[in-house]
């Protein structure tokens, strides 16, 4: 087998000013400008209120979009394996941790430290949803979306189970600005199945291909090295739900070719 066919049952979206998939879908479909509200916070109502107050923005965004996708798919999160992906991890928490380490290492906060692990969103999510299934936290830097999506599809097929996939990143702050390409926070999620169901809204065929120097895939994928742009490109194709292809960088010399099947 050199390709994987997966079916999308649910979607989630959050970006500052676009609160959910219902708000994002028409904007993506019409290629419209996205509103931007720097003060917006995700509702993340899936988390208990005390966790919601303490959790960093990365966790709130990831859990919010994950819950949207599960609700649309009418799947109980407790039974879904989950794959969370982020290119840069929780940059504000890393910033705070590294600043404290530089100033006075003995003042590191235990909560900041446990929030700094890359699987913090997966941890908060599984606790909040009573999910005992496998949970994963992955990264592929500029290939994160492709790597995470592929991993979720692999899990869906390997164990014949629906899988929750959530991608998120946080805007760069402090010294990361200018070095790490993360201009704005966002989150997006899918519930994927290996078998078509009554709730399937769009299907995806995923296939890795070497990126040849002058290939169309290379030209197509190149601008999508920034995680938000990659996510925008894929979710716009899902919102349109028309036959077509999206090319995402998936490695130094490879591309994930995503065939969208209406």
């Amino acid at each position, binding site marked *: *087998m*050199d390709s994987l066919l997966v079916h999308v049952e649910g979607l989630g979206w959050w970006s500052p000013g676009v609160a959910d998939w219902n708000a994002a879908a028409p904007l993506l479909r019409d290629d419209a400008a996205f509103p931007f509200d720097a003060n917006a916070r995700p509702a993340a109502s899936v988390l208990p209120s005390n966790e919601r107050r303490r959790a960093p923005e990365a966790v709130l965004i990831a859990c919010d979009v994950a819950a949207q996708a599960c609700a649309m798919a009418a799947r109980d999160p*407790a039974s879904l*394996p989950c794959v969370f992906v982020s290119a*840069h*991890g929780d940059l504000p928490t890393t910033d705070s*941790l*590294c*600043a404290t*380490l*530089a100033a*006075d*290492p*003995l003042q*590191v*906060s*235990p909560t900041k*430290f*446990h*929030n*700094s*692990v*890359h*699987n*913090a969103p*997966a*941890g*908060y999510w*599984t*606790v909040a949803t*009573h*999910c*005992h*299934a*496998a*949970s*994963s*936290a*992955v*990264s*592929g*830097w500029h290939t994160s979306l492709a*790597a*995470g999506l*592929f*991993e979720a599809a*692999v*899990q869906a097929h*390997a164990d014949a189970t629906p899988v929750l996939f959530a991608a998120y990143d946080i805007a760069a702050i402090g*010294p*990361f600005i*200018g*070095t*790490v390409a993360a201009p704005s926070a966002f989150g997006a999620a899918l519930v994927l199945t290996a078998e078509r169901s009554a709730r399937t809204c769009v299907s995806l065929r995923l296939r*890795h291909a070497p990126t040849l120097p002058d290939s169309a895939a290379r030209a197509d994928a190149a601008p999508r090295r920034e995680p938000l742009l990659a996510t925008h490109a894929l979710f716009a194709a899902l919102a349109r739900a028309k036959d077509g292809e999206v090319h995402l960088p*998936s*490695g*130094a*010399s*490879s591309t994930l070719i995503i065939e969208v099947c209406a």
Partner: protein
Amino acid sequence: MPSRIAPLAITAYTATSALGRGRADHAEALRLARGGLRSNTFTSTPLVCAIGRVDGLETAALPRAFAAYDCRNNRLAWLGLETDGFGEAARAAIERYGADRVALVVGTSTGSIGATEEAYLGLEDGRFAPPFRNPFLHTPHSLGLFLEAALGTRGPCLTIATACSSSAKVFAQGERLIRLGLVDAAILAGVDSLCGSVLFGFNALELVAPEPCRPFDAARRGISIGEAAGFALLERVGAAETPQLLGYGESSDAYHMSTPHPQGLGARLALADTFARAGLAPRDVDYINLHGTATIKNDEVEAAVVADLFPSTTRASSTKGHTGHTLGAAGILEAVLTLLAMRDDCVPGTLNGATPDPACGPQIAFANEERAIGVALSHSFGFGGNNCTLAFGHGAAH
């Protein structure tokens, strides 16, 4: 329950840790019950604890072609890769199958964050100094980027970062990719290196012991942090007596970010899936390399799970007293130690223990035992309640 899977061959494997470089150093340390922990000299701010440090990384710069990836973690990865001929074996697999038919799945907890920490010590007007304005040093995928560049794989490439289960889960991901026919081989890696975040972070959680860690001892006081690089090459078939991955299980505690489930529910679920995939029962298990971090909670819960599920003929030990807790590298380092124990018919003891915790059943081995090991497990449990257990066996001709 998951279905039974076909075993996969582990055709090459190696580890580098405080015990030394490569399989021979690690096998000898196990045989002699010799630990690699020593007093902390890593942090400039004093912190009384023991560490498992790999010597020589400070002067082992990466080859010029990979200078953009140069940091302690990638130096340790490079040192580990070019040990026991692993790099040659991996490159031969790439040659044999084609670069796009070989996956690269790596696990780490903190990756290159040591470089980010260093950058924060020398900020210029709130910005990174020029050498640190390098995105390769500030992503959780730094290890994957470096190894992909160093090896030239063109198949799926992914970093898994689920804290202390990271590089156990790479075995599960590799198996899935091969079983589905998406690749013919998977290069698996786990690398984590000493850094301020983990030493002072675990210290803030009051989980670091002032002395070398004492897994399963009644008076244990916490972990010792170590660093390590481990590698394994997974293929469908290997030569006779090639060790095999028989199964794996992954689960979530759904209990707490930094405390294990009191009844070890996640651990039990991961074990149940491991047995289902491997077609095994607890009575078939000769040896378990335990997570055994030497925190009060982990060892209490894990000892109770082992005492409850396994017969007394199953031997179980923690090698954290040898190497320290190498966090995101622990899964694969301990997989390698498990394979060496199987190869050498040696159940390694659990170092630094004097009085077993009352929760310990008869399974826990504190001293070395000579004994044939046909089937072995390795346990990895991480922050966020993230669990992964692995089962290993011998190839057909053993």
